[in-house]
């Protein structure tokens, strides 16, 4: 083979997080805070407050407010959604928590997958994948706090008496699911999954760092990481599915889709790959990852292209079955989104950003190998999937009071800034390229 002349002994690079990059990451957060505060002020001024409701009544009813959930259907919409500006803030926090925790998890999943798949090409950028894990515990805390503060706003099934036949707002469908969807079990699952994912991240990180230090040329660490990755993947397969039911699908409690676990996985995964490509490009522009060439970028581009199609495939499969079957309680999910002046434009936007744009732009080989193209597509895909998660979460919680505005964009930028900060500061602890990895040479000589 025509080997690339790289000295494997001196391939190690040490990333330092600072200077312009740190400034930019903080700038994103700063702009986010400004937008978020502005958006909040607009929300407070713009009402969303039913004036004919007495303030006292609010204070007592806030905890058990119906928060304009799907419950209105069962009662023929007798109470027009009570809505407070802070409900939208809570939903925004939930949206960001779900989105960024999922992206962090799937980025880390992609790392573990490379071990199980025994793949050699990504060794040079394995640390880029591994460090996604830093956001998982933080995202878990955000989700936990948001749930504790605003569970009634987000989840209709958390209301008291919803499973009680004597209650005024008894809901037979939710009562049938109460063994699974109840607050203690939900919290147990949330905490358990976050802890186990974090634990696996910690262990795998420790193994790759130990591999760096061991110069004896053993494959011991590689094999160990492979076994642990297999265990992680099995746990991940189950927990990711359950997570998607918990965090997103149970918002629309009456509705269910049997491929929802896959569907959310596809959305998170394509976003994680987009972030990965972006990080590789950023690091290369800063002068790191010298051994990474356009062939590695090409492979990331193929994954970005492929998973975009995979997402579209699942999105459409879910839609088509419901569209064909025409079952009223199922189609309501899409009717809410397609026949609403607020959500319908966003709904069609995600098809353009998440399918049509990446599909046509990344179709040729050359486009996947060009840094500029990959950058543009990655940014569009990340934004598109953030919008997609907003469409999944906001209509079910806020009904007609929601939308995609300053608070969503602002909070998204704040979380993005935290995500990037944790990512890059994690990346600066330890080398940028795994050393003594048995497939390092294969990765350096990667050619597509």
């Amino acid at each position, binding site marked *: *083979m025509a*080997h690339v002349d790289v000295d494997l002994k001196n391939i190690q690079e040490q990333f330092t997080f600072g200077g312009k990059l740190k400034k930019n990451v903080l700038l994103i957060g700063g702009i986010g805070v400004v937008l978020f505060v502005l958006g909040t002020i607009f929300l407070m001024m713009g009402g969303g407050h039913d004036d004919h409701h007495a303030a006292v009544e609010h204070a007592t009813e806030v905890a058990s407010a119906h928060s304009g959930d799907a419950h209105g259907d069962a009662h023929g919409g007798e109470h027009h959604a009570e809505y407070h500006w802070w409900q939208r803030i809570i939903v925004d926090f939930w949206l960001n928590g779900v989105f960024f925790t999922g992206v962090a998890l799937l980025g880390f999943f992609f790392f573990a997958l490379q071990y199980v798949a025994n793949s050699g090409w990504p060794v040079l950028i394995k640390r880029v994948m591994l460090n996604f894990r830093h956001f998982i515990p933080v995202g878990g805390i955000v989700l936990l706090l948001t749930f504790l503060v605003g569970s009634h706003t987000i989840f209709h099934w958390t209301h008291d008496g919803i499973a009680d036949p004597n209650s005024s707002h008894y809901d037979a469908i939710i009562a049938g699911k109460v063994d699974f969807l109840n607050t203690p079990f939900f919290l147990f699952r949330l905490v358990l999954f976050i802890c186990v994912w974090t634990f696996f991240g910690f262990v795998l990180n420790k193994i790759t760092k130990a591999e760096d230090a061991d110069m004896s040329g053993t494959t011991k660490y590689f094999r160990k990481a492979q076994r642990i990755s297999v265990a992680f993947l099995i746990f991940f397969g189950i927990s990711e599915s359950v997570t998607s039911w918990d965090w997103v699908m149970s918002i629309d409690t009456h509705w269910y889709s049997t491929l929802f676990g896959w569907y959310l996985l596809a959305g998170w995964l394509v976003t994680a790959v987009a972030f990965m490509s972006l990080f590789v490009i950023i690091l290369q522009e800063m002068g790191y990852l010298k051994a990474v060439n356009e062939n590695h970028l090409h492979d990331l581009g193929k994954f970005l292209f492929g998973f975009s199609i995979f997402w579209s495939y699942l999105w459409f499969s879910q839609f088509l079955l419901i569209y064909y079957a025409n079952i009223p309680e199922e189609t309501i999910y899409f009717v809410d989104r397609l026949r609403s002046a607020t959500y319908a434009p966003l709904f069609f936007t995600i098809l353009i950003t998440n399918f049509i744009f990446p599909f046509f732009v990344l179709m040729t080989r050359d486009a996947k190998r060009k840094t500029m193209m990959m950058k543009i597509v990655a940014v569009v895909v990340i934004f598109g999937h953030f919008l997609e998660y907003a469409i999944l979460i906001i209509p079910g919680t806020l009904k007609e009071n929601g939308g995609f505005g300053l608070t969503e964009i602002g909070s998204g930028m704040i979380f993005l800034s935290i995500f990037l900060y944790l990512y890059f500061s994690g990346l600066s602890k330890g080398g940028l390229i795994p050393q003594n990895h048995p497939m390092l040479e294969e990765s350096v000589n990667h050619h597509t």
Partner: protein
Amino acid sequence: MEKNTNYLVGVFGDEDIMIKAVKALRKKGVNIYEVFTPYPVHFLEDALGYKRSWMPKAAFGFGALGTTCAILLQSWIMGFEWPMIIGGKGFIAIPDFVPITFELTVLFSAFGMAGSFFVSQDLKPHKVPQIFDRRQSDDKHIMAIDLANNKLSEEEIKALLSESGAEEVNNKSFTEKEKKGNFFDYVADLFTNGVTDSARELKG
């Protein structure tokens, strides 16, 4: 009278040496006809200076044709020829058409690609294979140089090949008939000589 095409065939045992030889020969202005390797060798097409093929464009074209055909076919059937309401939707309900449109797009582009490949590689039934050296499918890398297509003399190229590490340098010639692999000639042969193994095999 039959015209012969003469080739110079370099046999290499190591892919690294072979790639270096390809680079060295191209630097000297030698026009390499083709390199045969028993397995895919990375960086070889870069060394040979091959351009990207037009196959992906053909695939896209056939795919687009498939999409068009699928939409027209379904619209015509479901909307005009045999109007039918399914699931309470309109006659021409686009979401219903997506799966079949997708499948026909894939089918057209797959068959179109296969066809394009046969055409571009001049593959046809009973095409006589040009075998420069039997070991090209075993353990050797074979470099063929068309002598008529080169400015340098045979001796010069021979020297260059051995210099750059060829284990052997052989001569190989095909008659015009063998090179083109005329299908009708083959059929004629079949009728006159009958099917024999040697009919498909080349001398040497």
